[in-house]
């Protein structure tokens, strides 16, 4: 047979088309068998110290789920976008996850601003959203599940312990935005409940880095304890200047934020030692689940020193979703929401985490800890704290269509 130009072209293009079409068909067939997790995290830019370990936690959790045979026989894949610490990119990528990738669930968002940027998009698109970060509380939306610590859970433990340990007169320093303002109110409430007295509260814009006058003012007021909810790099200077003025040995300190981004490893041992905090997780926690988690992280990434509070919180959020899908026997949104409201609980590295059906917030263990040579030493554990702040304003059982963030009045 002679091959002329026409038959060659016809045969050639048929083969080409066939080979092009093949992967598309295979790809589609596979996609039906996998569950897609959409991930939006800042893995570059100014918040990457928070976002990178969270992204690692996500990869670790998904690897473990897949190695264990997936969820209801389906493998899980990650569709992730780096939001580059840019709030505008959150809305853009959330649209992409909704319209183009058609994911089954979204995990992500770090700052409260980023969460609020995508929450409504996902709510309208009926795509379930897990926000796994310590935040100021009050979000009431049936489409979201939140497993981060809220101020009441932390402060309720921190304030009585600090007052009992050191005395009644409290001086509060907080960052001047919604997180700091709301947390300061909770500090006042729980401080007074424990018999303490708040003698002064000062708020600082996020870029203030000279605290000389504040340190002098604190000495004039002569409190028994300084409690702070300071946020970000410039505010770190407070702890340095405090130590440099020789105040560390004179007035003890407690904090609701220091350590979330591993700040206790940035401060030197002398600057950090003795500061008391309360969180859900510390790598020092002594439990088989935590030991297994640390080992798995070490095997996958090598360095376990990057693990911090919200990375573990993200990991636990993924486990919660996976458990909900298993309980529901499906990844379909309404079935998973019903599973979330039907007594969902997991055993995570930081202990038992269960979801409160009325608020979709987590009930979890809180540990009172002290900085000691750049680690967090657990002083006392408080098991299964309720998110009482959000519970005071939110009841999704009574109002399933509620969709807003309440500013909690105390």
């Amino acid at each position, binding site marked *: 047979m002679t091959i002329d130009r026409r038959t060659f072209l016809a045969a050639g293009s048929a083969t080409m088309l066939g080979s092009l079409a093949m992967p598309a068909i295979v790809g589609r067939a596979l996609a039906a068998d996998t569950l897609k997790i959409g991930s939006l995290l800042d893995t*570059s*830019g*100014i*918040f*990457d*110290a928070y976002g990178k370990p969270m992204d690692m936690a996500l990869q670790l959790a998904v690897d473990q789920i897949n190695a264990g045979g997936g969820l209801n026989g389906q493998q899980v894949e990650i569709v992730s976008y780096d939001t580059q610490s840019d709030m505008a990119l959150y809305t853009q990528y959330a649209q992409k996850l909704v319209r183009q990738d058609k994911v089954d669930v979204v995990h992500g968002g770090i700052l409260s601003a980023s969460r609020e940027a995508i929450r409504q998009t996902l709510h309208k698109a009926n795509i379930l959203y897990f926000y796994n970060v310590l935040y100021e509380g009050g979000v009431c939306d049936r489409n979201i599940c939140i497993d981060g610590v809220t101020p009441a859970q932390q402060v309720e433990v921190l304030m009585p312990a600090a007052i009992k340990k050191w005395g009644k007169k409290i001086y509060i320093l907080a960052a*001047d935005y919604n997180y700091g303002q709301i947390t300061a109110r909770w500090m006042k409430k729980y401080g007074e409940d424990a018999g303490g007295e708040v003698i002064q509260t*000062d*708020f*600082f*814009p996020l*870029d*203030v*880095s*000279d*605290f*000389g*006058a*504040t*340190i*002098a*003012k604190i*000495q*004039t007021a002569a409190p028994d304890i300084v409690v702070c909810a300071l946020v970000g*790099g*410039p*505010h*770190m*200077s407070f702890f*340095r*200047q405090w*130590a*440099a*003025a*020789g*105040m560390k040995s*004179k007035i003890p300190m407690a904090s609701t934020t220091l350590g979330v*981004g591993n*700040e206790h490893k*940035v*401060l*030197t041992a*002398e*600057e950090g030692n003795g500061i008391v905090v309360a969180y859900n997780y510390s790598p020092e926690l002594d439990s088989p689940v935590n030991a297994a988690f640390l080992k798995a992280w070490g095997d996958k990434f090598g360095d376990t020193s990057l693990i911090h509070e919200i990375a573990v919180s993200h990991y636990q959020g993924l486990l919660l979703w996976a458990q909900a899908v298993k309980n529901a026997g499906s990844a379909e949104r309404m079935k998973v929401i019903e599973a979330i409201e039907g007594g969902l609980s997991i055993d995570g590295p930081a202990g038992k985490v269960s979801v409160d059906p009325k608020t979709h917030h987590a009930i979890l263990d809180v540990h009172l800890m002290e900085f000691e040579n750049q680690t967090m030493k657990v002083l006392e554990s408080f098991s299964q704290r309720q998110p009482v702040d959000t519970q005071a304003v939110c009841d999704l059982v009574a109002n399933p269509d509620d969709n807003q963030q309440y500013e909690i009045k105390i």
Partner: protein
Amino acid sequence: MDLALVVAFQVIYSIALLVLISAGLAVVFGMMRVINLAHGEFMMVGGYATIVAVGAGVNIYVAMLIVAPLTVGILGLVIERLVIRFLYGRLVDTMLATWGLSLLLIGLATLIFGNTTTGISVPIEGFPIGAYQVNGYNLFVIVVTAVMVVAIYAVLSGTRWGLIARGTMQRSDMASALGYSPDRIYMLTFFAGSALTGLAGGVLAPLVGLVPTSGTQYIAKAFITVISGGASVIAGLLSSATLFGLVSQIFTFSVNSMVGEIALLIAAVILLRLLPQGITGRFFRGSM
């Protein structure tokens, strides 16, 4: 009484701080009319140079007072040769070029050091004033600043090099006619300005948590201080820093630090409305 002393100490410290962060800019902008928008990033580089040097085992004072100024001075020298020297007299172009430069430096610092806060401990113990405990390092900052101002004055007024530099800034054509190369003098002056900025970055490194974007928190204050100061480098710097330091600390003590910052900015706006040429455009004229 003790409190009054503490407040006075804090006011002097905040004046010294303004002088320290603005001195390099006063030389580069005040004398050479180059708007260096990368001024804050030069400080950031000075801070990182200090931290890296201390990490490598260098004595902290050597790191702050020698390594940081030298590193930033050399960085300034390279940048002057590669970019700035083509742009003398073109105010807007230097602004654009140095703004790009500041973004580049932030990017490079992020690439090398990552986007986390780093820092070193303060090497000086606090000391008591009566019943109060104050930051001993603040005293060190005041001393360093005082020595720096005296040194700048001595160089500009007492040495031949200072005379030539001042002459060149006023009439570069005359300096050239007298046999001095304006090109070389500009280069050296830019080096000196950059080194002063590096010194500020180094000295402040133990006080702040350093991130690659740290520079941005200084740039506005430095420009406000230099522009409000007016034409004279030293008298301008000292007078505007004194005014702003006093205003911001009084309001910080009596209300809070946010009001202190606002008061500083309002004082600057009013001042520039009344004295558009800066303080030394009206008072202390002809001083250095």
